[in-house]
C-alpha cells in the first residue's frame, strides 16, 4: 500500500515566517493530498496535486511534487498563529480502488 512519511515530525516557527514540510512515499501514485488537523477534530483537505503536476498554489499554500524522487513539499507562507495544527500527506495509488495511508504528520506550532 501507499505510505506518506512527513518530516519534520515537529516544527516551531514565529508568526510571519514560512513553514516547509516534506513528504516521501514509496510507489507510483495518481495524486498526493495534504490535510490539516486541528486538535481533537477530523482532518480537512487542503490541496491535491496530480502525478503530472509539479507545483500547485492555493492562497498561502504552495505544494510541489517530484515523482522522480517520490517526494512532495508543503510550504505555508507568512504563517499565522491560526496555522498551528498537524499536517498530513496521503497518496492515492494509480490503480482503481486502492486505499491510501497517512503518515505520522508534522506538528506545526506558530508562535505569536
Amino acid at each position: 500500500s501507499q505510505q506518506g512519511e512527513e518530516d519534520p515530525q515537529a516544527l516551531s516557527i514565529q508568526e510571519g515566517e514560512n513553514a516547509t514540510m516534506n513528504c516521501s512515499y514509496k510507489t507510483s501514485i495518481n495524486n498526493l493530498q495534504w490535510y490539516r488537523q486541528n486538535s481533537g477534530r477530523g482532518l480537512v483537505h487542503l490541496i491535491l496535486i496530480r502525478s503530472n503536476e509539479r507545483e500547485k498554489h492555493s492562497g498561502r499554500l504552495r505544494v510541489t511534487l517530484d515523482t522522480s524522487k517520490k517526494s512532495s513539499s508543503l510550504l505555508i507562507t507568512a504563517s499565522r498563529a491560526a496555522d498551528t495544527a498537524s499536517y498530513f500527506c496521503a497518496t492515492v495509488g494509480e490503480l482503481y480502488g486502492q486505499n491510501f495511508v497517512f503518515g505520522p504528520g508534522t506538528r506545526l506550532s506558530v508562535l505569536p
Partner: protein
Amino acid sequence: GAGVSQSPSNKVTEKGKDVELRCDPISGHTALYWYRQRLGQGLEFLIYFQGNSAPDKSGLPSDRFSAERTGESVSTLTIQRTQQEDSAVYLCASSLMLKPLHFGNGTRLTVT
C-alpha cells in the same frame, strides 16, 4: 450540505464490553474509510470500502475488530471485548473515487 457524521462523539466503556461506532458518509460517496488515531499519533488505517467490491480489511488489528457497510450508506465499526489499548479516536472518511477525503469529527473511545 451535510458532511460525514459520526456517533457517538464520545464513548466510555469498561474493559471486556463490546462497542459499536457509526459513520454516516456523504451521500453518493462510494468510498468509506475507517482510521484509528492514538493520542499525538498519526492515522492508522483500519478498513476501506469501495462500492460493491470486497472491503480491504488489511488494517484491522485483530479479529475483535469488524466493520460493515450497507451499500453506499452507513457503516458500523464493532470492537468486541474491548481492551485498554483500544482507547483512541476512531475517524471515518468518505470520498468519490480518487478524490479528497471528507472526515467526520471522530468518536473518542475510552476503555476503563
